[in-house]
């Protein structure tokens, strides 16, 4: 045997072993759900790198349940390389010894358990990555031996339709299938012909018809009924003080209530300011229901999505001018491309966080939870690889104090933190020291899980005002600018009042009144939709909200 083909030969051996397990029971590449455990035991080898697809929306849950049931004597010490650790099964495999090492990005709902298991030494952690970082490593030093992925349907040759939640699938398959790995896809149904081919069948080795459809959680739906006057005030300041000021057309929004409020103010407050067509036209964004009014009133030119959102399918299908859709009409999302778009092609990232320190570092980690990173760190960072100019980018660059010949100047990505000074239960957002640092010390991480580093942040917007960190010239100014918008938190009350007034004089801090905004005008009547039902009406009945968001 040629020593250059050892991986290829190993792959063939795995596939052969897998086929042997389903001999006589399979049709084409199709494997019945009750053979999942046998299949996995046949194709996995101890120490394999395995990507068990866990996205924001779409979970390979049937394969996850199968993996948990494998015999740890046969399948053990796996190295899991996956973006999302969100299902209980994703961690169960570490308790039985099936898996040992973990490299991941996001662990939202499992954040507390993952912290306990790291602390208890049950998980050997590689690193917590940003999405693009992990995807990049799939092609360099974390290439999976086996990928366990999820789709909506497949044909018997393995041609796969992912549905609107394409998300990570193409990236995972690309790295695995073209580097001698084995790809197993679970699908909700086997069909004669898929609506569209998201992944060609020659990259899929086995298709499992799942015992039940994969579950999708409506993660990006924010009920307008829950929006507060404070969030509306902050949104007004952001629109007037940042979107209008910098003419931000290309952007990404976080998933909090603050940015949802901005989405709902565009057709009302934004319209009144004459900003239609001038701002917020091109988006890297999941299909947020709260964006419907802005789309319907002609604000939005196009939206590229990381994944989809529950209830938005029919609406997207009827708005192909706005969204990326396939020949079948349904949404085509792609996390890797959308993250790249957010990083390089957007002039602004704006989102919320749980904690900000005096240097502007932010984190969503609390002392007992390792939530990992969502989309924020890639998009909420200044890409040094960028070369194309835009007015927004250049203006921010000038404010950052570029010197020398203008043709050698770098622009700056706007990275905006939109926060209320206090969170739920009167927990202050502004802190002396991030909980992430304490957590890192406790569980032995070399790097504290910082969502966005202070030197990437350009603005912080709170109900007290906007701090423009681009204009700060030293660390002390930065600190006072942050204290100056930190409200009645201890950090805020610890401000040097004279210095803060000086910063205000220089436009580094801007209060609502400096922007011509009367806080008492921040009223819910400004929202283009005040309820989920309003969103349904805006969509002409195309948006179909899940039952838990209905009150009719």
């Amino acid at each position, binding site marked *: 045997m040629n020593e250059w083909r050892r991986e290829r030969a190993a792959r063939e051996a795995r596939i052969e072993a897998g086929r042997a397990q389903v001999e006589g029971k399979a049709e084409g590449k199709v494997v019945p759900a009750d053979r999942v455990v046998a299949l996995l035991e046949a194709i996995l080898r101890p120490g394999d790198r395995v990507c068990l697809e866990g996205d924001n929306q779409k979970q390979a849950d049937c394969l996850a349940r199968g993996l948990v049931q494998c015999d740890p004597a046969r399948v053990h010490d796996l190295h899991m390389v996956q973006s999302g650790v969100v299902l209980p099964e994703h961690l169960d495999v570490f308790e039985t010894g099936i898996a040992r090492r973990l490299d991941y990005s996001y662990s939202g709902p499992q954040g507390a358990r993952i912290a306990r298991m790291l602390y208890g030494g049950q998980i050997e952690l590689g690193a917590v990555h940003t999405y693009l970082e992990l995807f990049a490593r799939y092609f360099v030093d974390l290439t999976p031996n086996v990928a366990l992925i999820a789709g909506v349907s497949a044909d018997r040759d393995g041609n796969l339709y992912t549905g609107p939640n394409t998300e990570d699938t193409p990236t995972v398959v690309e790295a695995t299938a073209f580097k001698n790995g084995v790809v197993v896809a679970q699908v909700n149904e086997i069909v004669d012909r898929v609506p569209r081919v998201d992944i060609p069948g020659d990259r899929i080795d086995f298709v499992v018809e799942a015992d039940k459809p994969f579950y999708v959680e409506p993660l990006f739906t924010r009920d307008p009924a829950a929006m507060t006057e*404070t969030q509306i*005030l902050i949104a007004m300041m952001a629109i007037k003080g940042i979107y209008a000021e910098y003419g931000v057309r290309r952007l990404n929004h976080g998933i909090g209530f603050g940015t949802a409020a901005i989405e709902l103010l565009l057709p009302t407050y934004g319209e009144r300011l004459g900003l239609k067509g001038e701002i917020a036209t091109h988006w890297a964004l999941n299909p947020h229901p709260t964006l419907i009014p802005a789309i319907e009133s002609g604000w939005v030119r196009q939206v590229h999505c990381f994944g989809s959102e529950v209830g938005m399918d029919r609406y997207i299908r009827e708005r192909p001018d706005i969204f990326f859709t396939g020949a079948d009409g349904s949404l085509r999302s792609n996390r890797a491309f959308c993250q790249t778009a957010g990083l390089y092609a957007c002039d602004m990232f704006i989102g919320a966080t749980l904690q900000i320190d005096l240097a502007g570092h932010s984190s969503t980690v609390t002392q007992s939870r390792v939530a990992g990173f969502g989309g924020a760190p890639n998009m909420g960072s200044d890409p040094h690889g960028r070369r194309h100019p835009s007015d927004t980018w250049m203006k921010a660059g000038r404010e950052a104090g570029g010197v020398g010949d203008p043709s050698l100047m770098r622009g700056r990505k706007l990275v905006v933190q939109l926060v*209320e*000074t*206090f969170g739920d239960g*009167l927990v202050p957002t502004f802190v002396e020291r991030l909980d992430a640092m304490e957590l890192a010390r406790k569980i032995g991480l070399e790097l504290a899980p910082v969502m966005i580093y202070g030197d990437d942040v350009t603005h912080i917007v709170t109900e*007290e005002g906007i701090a423009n960190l681009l204009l700060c010239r030293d660390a002390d100014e930065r600190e006072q600018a942050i204290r100056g918008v930190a*409200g*009645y938190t201890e950090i805020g009350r610890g401000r040097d009042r004279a210095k803060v007034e000086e910063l205000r004089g220089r436009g580094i801090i801007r209060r609502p009144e400096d922007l011509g905004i009367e*806080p008492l005008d921040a009223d819910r009547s400004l929202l283009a939709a005040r309820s989920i039902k309003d969103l349904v009406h805006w969509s002409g009945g195309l948006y179909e909200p899940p039952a838990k968001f209905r009150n009719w």
Partner: protein
Amino acid sequence: MEKLSFRHATPGPLPGRKSQAITGVVASGNLEILLERVLEPTVCTVEIETPIRGYGDVWEAVIADFVARARPGGLRITINDGGARPDTVSLRLLQGARLMEV
């Protein structure tokens, strides 16, 4: 319940003739504020009942800023707090002062 009370000197009466106003609702994270024009124009008092203990210094700062900004001379202000955040308190106080200025 924790009871707090503050008394501030003010330069003169709050403009307007409204004798009384009420704003807000006692609900989680919210509060109600009753404003009555019953004191000397050079005085403003604020009495608070709150279920969240230990935030006296924050209340003090919020009230001081409000008095400096709105100059609510002559007002007796009474607050039933439902655990509102300081920014909400501040917003409601300003709403209340505006109602009295009619």
